[in-house]
């Protein structure tokens, strides 16, 4: 019995990293976008499209890193479209996000049709467990076989936290997000900064798409994302717009997603649809807990009127 509990815990740990990586990238991308004062619900569409593009890139070229690059570039392109749309007068960023969500998914399903069957060159995994001296066959080593993009995400989270707080670029992004009037008074082009932040956010989210289609589950299918991009958007609220907290939140959500399969592996089964719904329920619970109806949320960029 004890070993079963340990197996479940190890599987959850491994799953937290494996499933949390896409959450990490999308939430970092959304965090950057929202710091500049815009909401990009379209990251769901970005995630689906970049997963397809990454898979196609890796499949066609045989090089996983080309796939990753293509995923990021296409993510940036779609986010750029969102950024430009939102810069038009009278265009609401929530509505634009919904449009991009459906647009990105439709485009990905159309272009991704030929890639549903084949296998593509995968992102390599880093055997942290073996480096730490564990037996390569042990569950611990298995759990610590980590997507090579995950350390990139961790570094990115640290870099973003530092950059937002300590660089001129970071200051501009935060200023545009906190007071567009102040930014205008200082001659900072508000829309340009926001479009740039949105595009960079899409680039980062594209890495999440690549992790989905090129690491876990490592295939391209139309049901690949099913709302993970949107969960990541909610996760940013939970993380109070702090990149480092996005990291912990992403791991928490990855763990929640891994709980179902882990329990199934030790014989608790029959409810896999309900377990698959766990991340959604957890997100809702966390939103209920983290939001307040009356005042602005702590840490929220002031220009972010709508994400309550």
């Amino acid at each position, binding site marked *: 019995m004890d070993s079963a509990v340990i197996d479940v815990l190890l599987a959850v740990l491994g799953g937290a990293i494996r499933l949390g990586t896409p959450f990490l990238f999308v939430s970092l991308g959304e965090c950057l976008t929202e710091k500049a004062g815009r909401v990009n619900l379209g990251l769901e569409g970005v995630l689906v499209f970049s997963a397809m593009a990454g898979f196609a890139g890796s499949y066609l070229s045989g090089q996983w890193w080309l796939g990753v690059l293509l995923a990021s570039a296409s993510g940036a392109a779609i986010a750029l479209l969102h950024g430009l749309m939102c810069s*038009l007068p009278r265009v609401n960023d929530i*509505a634009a996000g*919904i449009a991009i969500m*459906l647009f990105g998914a439709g485009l990905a*399903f159309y272009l991704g049709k030929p890639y549903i069957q084949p296998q593509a060159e995968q992102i390599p995994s880093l055997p942290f467990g073996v480096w730490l001296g564990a037996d390569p066959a042990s569950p611990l080593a298995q759990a610590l076989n980590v997507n090579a993009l995950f350390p990139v995400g961790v570094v990115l989270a640290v870099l973003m936290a530092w950059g937002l707080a300590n660089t001129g670029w970071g200051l501009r992004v935060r200023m545009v997000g906190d007071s567009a009037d102040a930014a205008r008074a200082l001659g900072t082009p508000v829309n340009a900064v926001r479009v740039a932040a949105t595009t960079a956010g899409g680039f980062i989210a594209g890495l999440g798409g690549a992790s989905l289609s090129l690491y876990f589950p490592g295939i391209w299918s139309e049901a690949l994302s099913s709302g993970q991009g949107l969960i990541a958007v909610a996760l940013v609220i939970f993380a109070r717009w702090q990149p480092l907290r996005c990291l912990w939140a992403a791991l928490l959500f990855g763990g929640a997603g891994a709980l179902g399969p882990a329990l199934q592996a030790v014989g608790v089964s029959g409810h896999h*649809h309900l377990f698959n719904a766990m991340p959604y329920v957890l997100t*809702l619970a966390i*939103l209920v807990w983290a939001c307040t109806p009356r005042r602005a949320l702590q840490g929220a960029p002031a220009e972010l009127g709508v994400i*309550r």
Partner: protein
Amino acid sequence: MAPEAGTLRADRRPCPRCASDDCQTMNLRDTAESLALPALALAGGLLLFGVFVWADGHDPVQVWRLLFLGAFGDAFSLQNTLLQAAPLMLTALCVALPARAGLTVIGGEGALVLGGLACAALPMLVSLPAGAAGTALLLVAAMSAGAVWIALAGWLRQWRGVNETISSLLLGFVAIALFKHLVEGVLRDPASLNKPSTPPLHEALHIGTLPGTDVHWGLAFGLAGCLLAAFWLHATTHGFATRVVGGNPRAAQLVGLPAARLVVLACAFGGAAAGLAGGIEVAAVHHSANASLIVGLGYTGILVSFVARHHPLAIVPVAILFGGFLAAGSLLQRRMGLPDASVQVLMGFCFVLVLASEALRGRLGELFALHKPPVGARPGATAT
């Protein structure tokens, strides 16, 4: 930035000619613009889609022709179009009604799926009278299920300030998981081997076709739903109060309107419409609840409502247009070998352009020089 507020526009500008806030010319121009902008955007969407399929190596003219033929070419495709349009009218209401109360709800798919499930599950739980009374009970169950689901998103917004766009979509995913869990579990008909389904509805409970056609009564329900919603919004005090809450929450608070109740109720009405759509799909088309119900009708309804600018009467023609595109999709697939997602791509282009076209509002006349404002009277750009 407040969501689209229908006809209550805070940024209406005075007429450049007579300087009145509410003159006939201005109102006419507004209406003409509200028709012209989406029409232009849809034309642009079709054009871009043509370029897209051309880049993919297909003949765009042939694609456009098939889109039209598959949608409105003959009596058969027209009936097919109306069959597709019926649920779209109802799922679009699930976006439009909350939108008029100021909420952007996109979880219609979940309400539809639960409505279908409730409709299929009710006969397993209680014995129903045969005939119209039994069918009515089925549809009431479907509407209640949908209403509860969307009202939940509205209530979370009112109670905790949870963003309803995110919560309604997440609730939609939860609903689909619940649906699959039950349909593949306790509600499963043991006879459904390859495709898990609930036991088929008794024939006496089916919804039949309109006399003389192959179109089922769902179309009548869709039309009635849109008419009823328009009546409620524009001809009742309650509907007016809802629009005030959606247009200007502060003003609504000042005059003492029960904003929270109105918002949750508008969400419940919208959810009921989407749930009804699911119930009708089960009672008239599939005759049991299974995965065929989850085909994205709720998502297409979002687009329909946005194109119709959340106006219930405008939803009817827009739903028929997009129903036509859906109906033509299979023709594109068969004749030209396009992927089944091609209609989704077309809709994506349309959605992006419809939103972007709002930027032209108030400038369309100037663009085509229909109405030249006198020099010096041109109003400045409004704050957004």
